[in-house]
């Protein structure tokens, strides 16, 4: 059976070939008053095109647009929702990257499409279905500071409902697969399980598009039973940082897909395709009834652009090796 390939999250913005548009340089020129916002927007689109071309050349089945216009994994979306303001820089978990912390200062609402134009632009550049990318509601809440007077349950439900509307708008724009990034599910405790479920349920129920709930860095062991029956298509697991994810395989409902995060997005060391193929075979042997994708463990943006490109190539090589082996 063919192993489908995909990436998780964003992708490095810098070019690897001389002459390619350099978004960093254009933004610096904008900051110096030498380029316009339109120049930046054009550079974002050209960067998106390059990110998609890299994946297409390598043969990635379900490419991502790389979130070329995003400053970090949270604020691009939080900024577009009602009820949020954006505050100071804070470290993004243990990644040595930063994000501006969203603050909840009023009822969270969906004011209109936030990522839809980006998705449309990316999909128009690719023959393959582009996987749309949104922060997960549980993580968006946990990454934020709640300064509103409402209670935690209300805020989680409101964020889930707002992101559900964004997901609906993406579906209307043609998105066939939507990826929700949920790093905080791996850090949640058992007592958080009902909250995680309450945040995800409105997002996943009734979706026309296929959905991935991706949990980088840590396995969602403590809350998995609470979310396992929700109607997600795929669960994304980081099996490099969190080998405990292997223990979740027996608990995954029949007929679902597992995005096996076996290409390490946080280390430059390149995996061996044969070794990765053997790990895929291990999963197939344990649960032959499930479908599998081969994925990066997390956003490839934790790597320099040259190394990220090598990882994309290796991802496809490993999946092809595994597909040829047929699980043996």
């Amino acid at each position, binding site marked *: 059976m063919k192993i489908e390939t995909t990436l998780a999250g964003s992708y490095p913005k810098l070019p690897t070939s001389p002459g390619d548009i350099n978004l960093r340089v254009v933004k610096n020129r904008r900051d110096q008053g030498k380029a316009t916002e339109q120049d930046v927007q054009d550079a974002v689109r050209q960067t998106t095109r390059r990110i998609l071309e890299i994946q297409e050349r390598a043969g990635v089945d379900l490419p991502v647009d790389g979130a070329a216009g995003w400053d*970090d994994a949270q604020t691009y979306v939080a900024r577009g929702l009602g009820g949020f303001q954006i505050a100071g820089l804070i470290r993004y978990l*243990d990644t040595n990257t930063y994000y501006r912390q969203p603050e909840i200062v009023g009822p969270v609402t969906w004011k209109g499409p936030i990522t839809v134009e980006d998705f449309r632009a990316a999909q128009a550049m690719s023959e393959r279905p582009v996987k749309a990318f949104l922060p997960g509601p549980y993580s968006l809440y946990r990454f934020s500071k709640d300064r509103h007077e409402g209670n935690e349950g209300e805020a989680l439900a409101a964020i889930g409902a707002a992101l559900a509307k964004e997901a609906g708008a993406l579906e209307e724009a043609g998105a066939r697969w939507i990826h929700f990034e949920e790093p905080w599910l791996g850090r949640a405790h058992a007592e958080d399980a009902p909250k995680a479920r309450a945040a995800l349920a409105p997002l996943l129920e009734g979706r026309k598009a296929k959905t991935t709930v991706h949990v980088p860095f840590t396995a969602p062991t403590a809350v998995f039973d609470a979310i396992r029956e929700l109607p997600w298509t795929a669960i994304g697991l980081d099996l490099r940082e969190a080998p405990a994810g292997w223990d979740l395989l027996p608990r995954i409902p029949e007929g679902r897909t597992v995005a096996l995060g076996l290409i390490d997005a946080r280390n430059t060391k390149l995996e061996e395709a044969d070794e990765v193929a053997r790990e895929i075979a291990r999963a197939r042997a344990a649960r032959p009834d499930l479908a599998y994708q081969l994925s990066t463990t997390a956003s490839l943006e934790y790597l320099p652009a040259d190394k990220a490109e090598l990882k994309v190539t290796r991802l496809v090589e490993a999946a092809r090796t595994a597909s040829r082996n047929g699980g043996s």
Partner: protein
Amino acid sequence: MSRGLWTTTVGSFPKPPRLEKARQQHARGELSAEALEAMEREETIAVIKRQEAIGIDIIVDGELYRGDMTTYFAERMPGFAISNPVRSYGNRYYRKPIAVGPIRRKKPLTVDWWKFAQSQTSRPVKGMLTGPYTMMDWSFNEHYPSREAMTMDLAEAIREEAFALQEAGAKYIQIDEPALSVRPEELSLAVRAFGRVTEGLQAKTITHVCYGDFDLIYPGLLDMPVDQIDLEMANSRYDLLDRFRSHPFTKEIGYGVLDVHSHRVETKEEVKEGIRRGLEVLKPEQMYVDPDCGLKTRTVDEAFAKLEVMVQAVREIREEKGITT
């Protein structure tokens, strides 16, 4: 009358435009290493003199000769290679170390610069290092079998540098561990490695920790074998003080009162209010007032304008509360 509320800064200062330009010229091969270093020394003297003029009690050299706080050290230590740029936020990038072999300290990393800086002032100059846990966590690892093995090798190397700084005369040695606050399950490893660095050191030891989730590591943070922990207070609107009410902060504290990621210069009243709030739960003799973090992301004018406000606010609070240095 009590003593306390000394003023200091966390480490880095902004590089003046002429130095930024010179670094770029050097990177392109258009300026010699000697010419660049001469300019770095001129600007280091300027930073020291401005800190003296403002009235900062404990001086830093400004790190104008350094790029990233891990890469500077990695470039000088066998066992490391350096990656192409990786994004840290928005449009900010840095080159990240890659462990490709056993990491060692073969030569002094900062001692010559410390000696130079100390020779320019009668005030104490802090020795500034990056801690072993942060060096490990902020590097790629293509060599070591475990995070622990890499951290402990780094601890030996950084320990050698810390003792070399002490030997040279440093009375304050700051060993930054900003990565400490994000992986609570590894706090014990970070504490053990830090203990190896500081074991037997007579100098006052400081560590700077920032931009993380303190709920995860406090009060375990107080186990760090260090005299002073430097924290960003202003950026989090002094929320940490509530934690200190429920579990007292038992060490000296570097008390950050300036948001280094904001262009806005704080008002004196804001800073005074932040210090007053701190004095509700901390003793003045515990407190070293400083910015939240290194100032290198500000412009030169912003950085010194912020520091002038800070020092003036501290002076007025000292007078108000009858505190001497």
